[in-house]
């Protein structure tokens, strides 16, 4: 597969763009006036203490949370709200779904559908959202299952599988939609330690073989270092430091980044 060689993280048009984003839960302001962009094919890891708003950022991009203020653009198209005649107008769910079709997400707790087999989980969206024929979706699913090493379990139910296996299938399910953006939300946090490696290995392969833009929230600092083009350190809802992974992990400038990394490494 031809590789994208330009995903240095500093060139290209913005793929994900946060403009003056505000997110509040009741009185609690999680994100306050956040601005950042991710370019096409860039892999950005968000680090920071829990409660700093990292997961909220991913959930906003997936439209699992409603923006309180500001705008998010995906490939130049407004996602949740748009400006119309100087007013901020909510975009209807149906239109949102057209954009989120290009966005995939992998969750901490896998969230496979327990009432479906592995194969049914993977072809559900390709058939019912993208309109693929069942046979077509299945052969594509087989290839993806092969890639994540789970083809032999295609007729199993999620409940029969280990956490690591379920997560690999969840990754295949997200990839089956040919996403241009992939959101990884603490995908190894719920796994037993001995199962973390198999999931990260799969993700590293995908990072190497595709040019999908990725937003990653993880506590696996080595993984972050291996796949990221850029690391953004969050605290209290804003970016306090960002840069190349080597720079952030080896010689962080901000005191809070230093404290955080000392605590987790």
């Amino acid at each position, binding site marked *: 597969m031809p590789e994208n060689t330009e995903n240095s993280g500093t060139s290209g048009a913005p793929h994900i763009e946060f403009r003056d984003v505000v997110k509040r839960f009741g009185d609690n302001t999680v994100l306050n006036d956040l601005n950042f962009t991710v370019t096409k094919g860039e892999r950005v890891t968000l680090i920071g203490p829990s409660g700093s708003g990292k997961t909220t950022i991913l959930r906003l991009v*997936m*439209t*699992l949370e409603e923006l309180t203020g500001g705008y998010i653009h995906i490939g130049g198209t407004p996602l949740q709200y748009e400006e119309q005649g100087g007013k901020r107008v909510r975009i209807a*769910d149906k239109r949102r*779904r057209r954009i*989120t*079709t290009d*966005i*995939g*997400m992998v*969750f901490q*707790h896998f*969230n*496979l*559908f*327990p*009432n*479906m087999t592995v194969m049914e989980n993977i072809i*559900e*969206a390709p058939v*019912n*959202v993208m309109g693929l024929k069942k046979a077509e979706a299945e052969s594509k699913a087989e290839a993806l299952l092969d890639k994540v090493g789970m083809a032999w379990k295609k007729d199993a139910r999620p409940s029969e599988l280990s956490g690591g296996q379920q997560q690999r299938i969840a990754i295949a*399910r*997200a990839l089956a*939609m040919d996403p241009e953006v992939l959101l990884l939300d603490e995908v190894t946090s719920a796994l037993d330690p001995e199962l973390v490696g198999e999931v990260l290995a799969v993700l590293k392969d995908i990072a190497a073989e595709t040019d999908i833009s990725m937003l990653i929230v993880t506590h696996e600092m080595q993984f972050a270092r291996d796949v990221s083009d850029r690391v953004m350190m969050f605290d209290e809802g804003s970016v306090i430091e960002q840069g190349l992974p080597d720079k952030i992990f080896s010689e962080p400038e901000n005191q809070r980044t230093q404290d955080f990394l000392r605590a987790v490494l």
Partner: protein
Amino acid sequence: MTPSNSWWDWGYAAEALPVLFDGFKITLLATVLGTLIALVLGLVVAMVRRTAPAIINAPFTWLVEFIRMTPLVIQLVFANLALSPFVDSTLMIGIWVLGIHYTTYMAEVYRAGIDSVPKGQWEAATALSLPRVRTWRAVVVPQAIRNTLPALGNYAISMFKETPFFVVIYIPEMVRNAQTFGGDNFRYTEAITLAGLIFLLASYPTSLLIRRLEKKLA
């Protein structure tokens, strides 16, 4: 045949059986159709109450409470009085009243079932951009029903046992037939006892099945 004076006459009992079975057919029909009505409408009610705006939800909730908080017998008599000029079949009136009465109970069961589907399932559906209808049909409802099958089954048995209330609108189900049969000689022991036994024979194995299902799903 005139029954003997002993407290139980086997010959008389045997004579009652065919009459009872005629009634049993009606009982069974009412149970099956009533259950189907309650199963389908109950799901619709549960979904409306979960998704509809407050302006529709409020009167709807009131109606559901009204049906639940009044006795089935009164509803049967009332519906029969109100509807018999327009509907030929009293049986159909009875079946609909029974079905709608239990709709309110089954809706509560479905509601609990829907609430028991983890938030992560809805989120996964959103992440896959599944349309709303598809999310309900392929993800939420199958899981909700799985969680509620035993409770729904218990209500079906309960409906079965409440069909004798049809007696108040003169539907010839099993218990009414037992009464009519007994009334010919002012002797009810055999027919009523047998009717009770038939109910027991039908509902006990069903409840055992439901209990097994419950264990299997747990």
